[in-house]
Structure formats: C-alpha cells, structure tokens
C-alpha cells in the first residue's frame, strides 16, 4: 500500500425525520425551532405521536396542556400518545 489514510474529517448534516416540512401547530419549519426558542437542535426537539404526526415538543406540550380532557393529536384527532420509537 503506497497510500494510507492517516485521518479523515468527514462532514454530515442532520435534519429531522419528519413527514412534513412545517410544524402543524406553529407552522414554523422543522429545520427551525418553535416560536419560543432561538436555536433549533437539541434545545427544541421534535416529538412523534403514535399517529405518526410530528410537532415541536414545546408546541405539542403546550397544546396538550390546554386540553384538560381528551388529549388528541391536533392533526388527526386520534388520542395523542408519544411514540418513543
């Protein structure tokens, strides 16, 4: 072997695996963050429901708190359950 790799600096970009571009609640893009946050990423994560819909965590939590009974997905009106893949 005449040539070997000594070190390698790779670059990758990450994005959310979401079935939509925008959050169904705040209408902000998932690549961004919810209106209350400044920086996307770990500070403003996404969550998925078992119905496969996905929102900013902050948005859906706020929504659920405003619904004392019958916590439903705002998109499909199924009962909301977090999907912890």
């Amino acid at each position, binding site marked *: 072997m005449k040539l070997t790799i000594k070190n390698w600096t790779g*670059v990758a970009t990450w994005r959310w695996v979401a079935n939509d571009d925008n959050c169904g609640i705040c209408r902000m893009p998932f690549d961004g963050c919810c209106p209350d946050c400044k920086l996307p990423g770990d500070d403003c994560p996404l*969550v998925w429901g078992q119905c496969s819909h996905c929102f900013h965590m902050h948005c859906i939590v706020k929504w659920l708190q405003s619904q004392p009974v019958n916590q439903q997905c705002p998109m499909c009106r199924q009962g909301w359950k977090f999907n912890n893949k």
Partner: protein
Amino acid sequence: MSRHVSKIGDPSPLKRLDEPQISKKIRLEIEVDENMSDNSPDRNRRANFSNVNGVNRNLNIHSVKPTTKKLIIKNFKSEPKLPDDYNETTWKKLSSAVIAIQQSKPNEYLLEELYQAVGNMCSHKMASELYKNLFELIDAHVRSNIEKFKTETMDRLLFLKKMNDTWQSHCNQMIMIRGIFLCLDRTYVLQNPNISSIWDMGLDLFRKYFMLHTLVQTRVVEGLLMLIEQERQGDKVDRILLKSLLRMLTDLQIYNKAFEQKFLQSTERLYAAEGQRLMQELEVPEFLAHVDKRIHEENERVLHYLDSSTKYQLIHTVEKQLLSEHINNILQKGLDNLLEENRLHDLSLLYQLFSRVKNGLQELCHAFNAFIKKQGRTIVIDPEKDKTMVQELLDFKDAMDNIVASCFKKNEMFSNSLKEAFEHFINQRTNKPAELIAKFVDSKLRAGNKEATEEELERLLDKIMVLFRFIHGKDVFEAFYKKDLAKRLLVGKSASVDAEKSMLSKLKQECGGGFTSKLEGMFKDMELSKDINVAFKQHLNINTPELMPLDMTVNILTMGYWPTYLPMDVTLPAQMVKFQDIFKEFYLSKHNGRKLQWQPTLGHCVLKARFKAGQKELVVSLFQTLVILLFNESDEHGFEYIKAATNIEDGELRRTLQSLACGKARVLNKIPKGREIEDNDKFKFNNDFVNKLFRIKINQIQMKETTEEQKATEERVFQDRQYQIDAAIVRIMKMRKTLSHNLLISELLGQLKFPVKPSDLKKRIESLIDRDYMERDKDNSNQYNYVA
C-alpha cells in the same frame, strides 16, 4: 481758604465767578493782574486783600476775646481800573507771540507773562474779543498754509511729506498757543458751549480749508492711495508718513468721507483684477497661499497705519474679491487634486480661508462630498479592481478621516458629509462591495495570515466594520460571510478563535442578535461535534476494537445554520463506508428522530504516501483522496475508469485531477501533458515526487465559483429578502388596517434595510393578496385592507 474769599462778603469788585473750583485761580489771576498793571500804585492792596480773611476771622475771634486789638478794614477808595488801552497793547503782545510761534521764530516775551496777560483779559470781560482775534489770526495762518499747496505741482511723495510737515507744525503750534491761551479755554470757552476750544478751533479751520481746496484734498488722498498701492506691489514705503497723514484725516474727521471709501474702492478694484488674473495663472495651492498672504498683509496694514474702524470692511473686501468670487473656481480646479494628493497643509489653509467667507464651508463641504462620491465610485464600480477594492476603500477612508481630523478641524458637518458620501457610493454597486468585504474579512481571518498581530487584526476589523456600517444590503454580507466562515470552520483554517469571536460580537453589536444567530449556531455545532467525536472514539474502542484503525472525526452540522450544500453521491472505499455506517448508527442512537446526510464535498483527509524519495503527508480533500487511493491498485488509470470508480461528478473530477496532476505539487502525471483534462487522458502515480516539505497541502482548484456559487448565494439572499418584505408588509398592514398603495410603499422603504425595487414590492403585495393576508379595497383599487 479760597472758598472764604469768594463767599464771605467779597470786597473785590473783580469777583465774578461763583464756581468754587476755579475761584482760587481767579484770585491768583487777580494778583498777577495787580502786579502787572502799572496803574495800581497802592501796594497795600495786596495786604488789604489778604486781610479780608483776617477780618472775617478776627470778627469771630473778636466775639470770643474782646480784649484783642481791633483791625479795621476799609473798602478801596476807588475801584482798581485797567488802563484804557490795555486791550490793544496786550493783544499786540499776544498776537506778536502767536505769529512768532506760527513762523517758528523765537518769542520775545516770556510765556509766563503772556499767560498772565490772557488771564487778565479774561477776567476783564475781554475774553470774547480775545477769542475772536485769536480766531482770525489762526484762520489767516491756516488758510495761507493750505493755499500754498494749491499751486504746488511737486512730486506726490514730496507733496505728502510737505503736507505732513504742515500738519505736524500746525499741531505743535496749536499746542503752544493753547498753552498760552489756557485761561481762555478754561473760562470763556467753558461758559459758552457753542464755542469750540482753541484746539478744536484749530482743527476746524484746518478742516475747513482742507475741504475747501478739493484739489489739495484729492492730491493727499490720491497720494496716500498711491503709496498703499505701491506697498501692495511689494515696494517699501514710508509707513510713518502714511500713518501720520491718516491720523490727520482721522483727526479732521474726514477719514471716512474723504479716504476710506476711495480706499475700499481701490482695494476692491485691485483685488478683483488680481483675483481674476491669478485664478488663471496660478495653481490653486499657490493661489491660496497668495490669498493668505494678502489677508495677512492687509491685517498688518490696519495694525500699522489704517484706522482700526476700516479693518472689517477692508478684510471683507479682500475676502470677497479673492475668495468669495472664486469659491467655485477654486473648488473645481483644485480641491480634487489637493484631496487626491493628500496635501494636508494646503487643505488646512483652504479650510481656514473658506471659513472666513459666507457659505465657504458649505461649498467646501459640498465639494468634498462630491469628491468622495466620485472617487469612491471609481473604486467601487470597476469590476477590474474588485481584488483591491476593500483595501482601497479602507485606505481611502483613512485618508479622508485624516483630512477631516487634521485639516477640517473635525468639523461635524464634514464628518457627517463624509459618512453620507461613503454610504452613497458604496451602495452604487449593489451587493458586490458587501461580498468583497466579506471575502476580505475571510482572507484576514484565515490561518496562515501572519502579516498582522492580534491588535493589528483587531484594529483592521474595526475599520472594516465602519465600511460594513455603510452597506445597505447587509444580508448579502451575511450570506457570503457565512459561506466563508463555514469553510474556515470545516477545514480548520481559522486563524484564531478569538478573532472569529471578536468579529462575531462586532457584527452582533452592529446588527443585533438576529443577524448573528446562525453564525453563532455554526460555532455551537463545531463545539457539539467535538463532544460527539470524543464519545465516538470511546464507542469504537469498546465495541469494535478489531476494526482497522482509521482516525475519523465528523463535523455534524445543523441544516438551518449552514449554507446549503448540494448533496453529492460518491463511491467511497469499503473501509470508509464502514466507518461512516458505524458513525451514523452511533449518532442516530444518541439523537432520536434525525437523519444524517453525508457531505463529501466538505470532507478532507491527511494521507500517508510513500514515494521513492521518502514518505510524505498529503493534506487533501475527500475527492482528491478518493482519486489518489485508486492508485494503490495500479500505477496507471484512465479518466473514464477513475470516473466510474469514484462516481465523482464530471466537472468536479476534472478539477480534482487538475489539482493533482497540473498544480504545484504533482503527485500524479498526466499523459499526455497539458492543462486541460480530456476524456482519453491517462494518469500515472508520480513515484519520483519530490518536495522539500514533509506535509504538503494540495490546493483544490476552486470551481470558477464566481459565477455559479455567487449566483446561488445571491439567490438565497433574494429569497430571504422576500420573506422580510412579506413580514414587513403584514406588520404594517396589521397596524394600519387600511393603507393606500403609495403610503404602504413609502413605509416599506423606510423599514426595509436593503435596497429594493418598488416593482419587487408590488409582486410581494400581489402574492400576499393571493394568500389572503390582505385585499384590495372594493371601492378604491389603490387601497389595501388588512385581512385578519
């Protein structure tokens, strides 16, 4: 004592005055009179006279001590009288004395004697006659003196000298005469307010005849003007003579009427002509120096011989003729040169002179502004000069700042105008200056830029921020800056983290947190990536110790922060793919719900290569790595094979091969040789590669980025702007509810911080109407209503 004399039963019939202040003198005069006059034989009178006091006192004493001896006082038996011809004889004496004085001959009488004679005459009610006689005497003398000049046809200078002598002797004589006739001044003149004092009478007479003989007067004035003109032309003249004669005119109170006007007129004529002529002949700096000299000279003139009341008008005239008239000419002809050549001294002078005249500074400021705009435009507008534009702008700004500070006395008007002009011209060319400033900063912040110490760099960044402040399209700057910052961070080329952070904080200060949040996010990503890599190494050690070691670090970027990169699929060697997969698995296990996209365009490697001459380390991009690694299998590959094996995009591959085979460090040999990569080319591993360095960086050949990449960046900027326009429109409409088109446009132009065309705004408004954010008013199509 003397008060008693006058107040208490004064026996003297001579007593006429009640003023206590002068009564003492009166007594003295009386005494003198008595002694002088031969017709008063009674020598006791003096004793008697003084006894007046004695009596009074004695009377008082008497009432206290009656035993003392009585002294009886009697009135004069007859009133003392002056001889009848006293008037004539005394006047004869006096007149002869006056004439002697006037002819500068020795005087046969004692001055004391004359003085007493005048006193006597005054006290014997002859004052008015005396005054009249004296008046006639002086009148005759002055008239003959001045009439002498009427016929004189001598040289002007001589004439002036003679005039001056006459005047001087007139003054001297009048002082002398006044001395003798002091009593007249002090009694008669004082009592009669409409009669002027002897000195004034002398002046009046002099003036009268001087004015009467206009020829004499004009000759004098013209002579004076001639002298002054000679001096202005640089000759030496008798300043004392000038001063004396001008004093004469002032004393005669005809300075204003007879001299000043003509003087100012001639000044005006002279300088008007001179200004015209010199403006043609001289270069501006010399002209300014000349004007300065002239003003200085005229000031001197005022100081030395002109009346100080002339100063304002005189200087004003000079300024008007030499400066005000030529302001535009001077500015047009010379200012640009002065500024270009940075002639601080001349500029200071220019400022100083122009500050003297009305509107001078405004005009100067205006021209200064125009110059900056013109000059700046030439720096900015020419695409040929793009490479040096920012440096030139910095230098230009420095030079102009320096001029304002050192020549224009930091005048606020000028520094504001400077700012305004910079802002104007820098935005003459949209986007490019912003882009170039961003690139300039990049070049300074890049590693290997060893030309500056940290403080110098800091200062430079501050200066750049000043330029940045002028730019309207700050988003363009941000886009390019971001792109460059990404490169610096990913390739590890940043010179110093401190400098990067400092630049970031400057931008944040200037444009607020919104502007820099993405840039900050990029720094944050870099830090997070570090942690992940540490964790990944541990993970590798524990879980897959059997794997062939490959030192791999990965920078994980958050999509939103970084510039968008086109994903590109390439074929990696199996080993690398394996590592990528392990890393991906590791990362996704830590971060739920994400997907990872590799960006081969941004990766880079360090390769160990063994050549005949020894081992070297090559610092290369991922693409270069892929190509070079192929040569482990065989020493020679054709272009098509390489393309198929690596799956690198055609253009990219050609550039990569070019960098390896045609650049400075040629690790591959191209067959046949040549700069361009052709489809049939073959490449051979260059075993004979030599280089004095151990670690060699093989530069990538930059995509002819300017066009494509730049367009992409601009496009992105344009996209962002559309959102901003939309937001601004909605914000305004939400507040106003209804608004006419024109008002909306003007408010938008006020709010938006980047240059924008009204037609673009119209498009955005249409789009918002389509999306039901607002609607056209049903009655008035020129008006919009906000739709909640």
